[in-house]
């Protein structure tokens, strides 16, 4: 018997369980901290009491705190977790599908498309809800263009898909450029730029409720397909010889990951780095097997975004755009990760 090998396999399993539990605990702790601090800071014990009181239908002891929690902080915390988890999960999925650890969720143009949609809403003077809907729709339109180009050229390889993504993103940023050019500098341009940098300042409970069903459905499908994703990441040829309908599975996975990104980007604006860095970190923690990497990416991304958003609203009196913080923290962190991966011979 090769007990050493079996022990090694058991050890990996145990490590995954530990990482999973630690991340769950961390997420809860940070959520509690995020709920407690801000413009008005509360004792975490009071926060817990207030929440349990409201949930169990009692009259809250401190109605003011209850209002802040349920109208502002809880939606915001949920939104931050949702956005971070969604971006990280779809980033991890994209990296697997494209066999490339350097890919981020905006590879096929979701983000640039969403930017165009949001900017169009600003120029047309539409309200928040319409802006979110336009961002979502344009994000998906961009991905649809990206996946249609290879079909038109009759070359359905990953490489062609990546190139199509570059074409779409390039085109969309030019369209965005035109919109910025004609926008009113004082009001519209600043609104577009602010959206591009990402923020959860205006998020409310309705937003979270509106996007959750799509996001959660897509996430469940992706998690359920995680083992198939392993096979897909071997490359098209191998997946095909294992009897997989590569076009169909890849199509489903890309559509789910894109919907997931679009559904969250439309409430937060574009947020950089998360979808690239978090999957790397989770791979370093639990390995490449998507059955473990995807849940860990999801938890880690949610926690990371929660921390970033809490910093963004507490560091200064006004909210700092999210992409500024994710870039400041994410970029050096990514460099460190690459160094670690080099040391572990993974790159």
């Amino acid at each position, binding site marked *: 018997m090769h007990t050493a090998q079996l022990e090694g396999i058991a050890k990996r399993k145990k490590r995954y369980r530990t990482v999973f539990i630690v991340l769950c605990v961390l997420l809860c702790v940070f959520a509690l901290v995020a709920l407690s601090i801000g413009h008005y800071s509360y004792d975490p014990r009071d926060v817990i009491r207030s929440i349990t009181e409201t949930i169990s239908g009692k009259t809250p002891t401190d109605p003011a705190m209850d209002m802040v929690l349920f109208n502002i902080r809880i939606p915001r915390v949920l939104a931050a977790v949702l956005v971070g988890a969604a971006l990280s999960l779809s980033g991890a999925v994209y990296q697997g599908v494209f066999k*490339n650890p350097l890919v981020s969720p905006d590879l096929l143009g979701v983000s640039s498309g969403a930017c165009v949609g949001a900017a169009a809403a600003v120029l047309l003077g539409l309200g928040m809800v319409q802006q979110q809907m336009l961002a979502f729709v344009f994000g998906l339109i961009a991905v649809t263009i990206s996946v249609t180009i290879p079909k038109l050229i009759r070359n359905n390889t990953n490489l062609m898909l990546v190139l199509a993504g570059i074409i779409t993103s390039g085109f969309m940023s030019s369209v965005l450029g035109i919109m910025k050019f004609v926008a009113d500098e004082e009001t519209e341009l600043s609104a577009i730029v602010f959206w591009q940098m990402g923020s959860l300042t205006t998020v409310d409970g309705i937003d979270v409720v509106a996007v959750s069903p799509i996001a959660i459905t897509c996430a469940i499908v992706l998690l359920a397909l995680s083992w198939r994703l392993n096979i897909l990441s071997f490359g098209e040829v191998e997946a095909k010889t294992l009897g997989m309908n590569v076009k169909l599975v890849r199509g489903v996975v890309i559509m789910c990951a894109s919907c997931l990104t679009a559904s969250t980007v439309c409430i937060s604006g574009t947020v950089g780095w998360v979808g690239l860095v978090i999957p790397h970190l989770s791979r370093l923690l639990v390995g490449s097997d998507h059955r473990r990497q995807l849940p860990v990416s999801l938890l880690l991304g949610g926690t990371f975004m929660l921390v970033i958003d809490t910093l963004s609203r507490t560091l200064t009196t006004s909210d700092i755009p999210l992409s500024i913080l994710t870039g400041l923290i994410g970029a050096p962190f990514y460099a460190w990760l690459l160094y670690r991966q080099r040391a572990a011979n993974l790159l």
Partner: protein
Amino acid sequence: MSLVIDHLGFSYAPSAQIFTDISFEVEAGSVVCLLGPNGCGKTTLLNCVIGLHKATSGSVSVDGESIEQLAGAQVAQLLGYVPQEITAAFDYTVLDYVVTGCAPHMKWFKRPGEAEYARAWESLERMGIERLADQSYARISGGERQQVSIARVLTQKPAFILLDEPTSHLDFGNQIRVLDLVKDLAREGFGLLMTTHNPDHVLMLDGKVVAMQRGGDYRFGNARDIVTAETLHELYGIEIAIEHSGAAKRDVCIAVGVGE
């Protein structure tokens, strides 16, 4: 069961025909080798059989059923493929890699459970590489990867196994071990189709052979009839001798030299 390759032709472009009309059969329980010089289209032929390339003419069928008409998972239950070179983008463990051989037998959302892992472990044991089970697939040698790849196809349990130069990265000992395994698998009822660069391996396996030439000419028959000094000279353009070895109790193939 038999795998029938019927008047198969393939070209990348109308002006570049790789082969035009190849027909042969692989019976369950037998070995067919594809022999021929570099660039004659051995791997292309395998790719056409497995459906990675679409043949420009002719058909591939198993017991009268055309492979083209079958769904991917059904094909993968009939035909398994061991490619020559596999690159790893991510670092799965060898066991997790081998267990993916169960995929054609599983539903979309199902994940491998104990039964599947037991099957994968069995294949590793059969190849004698259990020691690799928990190692990263990206960090083992090319030869080990080739063995792992064969272990996966054993997990897949298709009726026919296609191997593209299964010995190309292996040391002398492991080459012979793999050939021995190929013989064993044929005895167990698998049909095997493999490409090789070594005519001596063809003699050793003592099955049938398709000797391909550049341009699409080929001969199909028993290894002993086809692998002759003249045929090999035609294929490779060098002097080759076939002599009987008392120790091996069979004919062996020896390269004499490049000739004049």
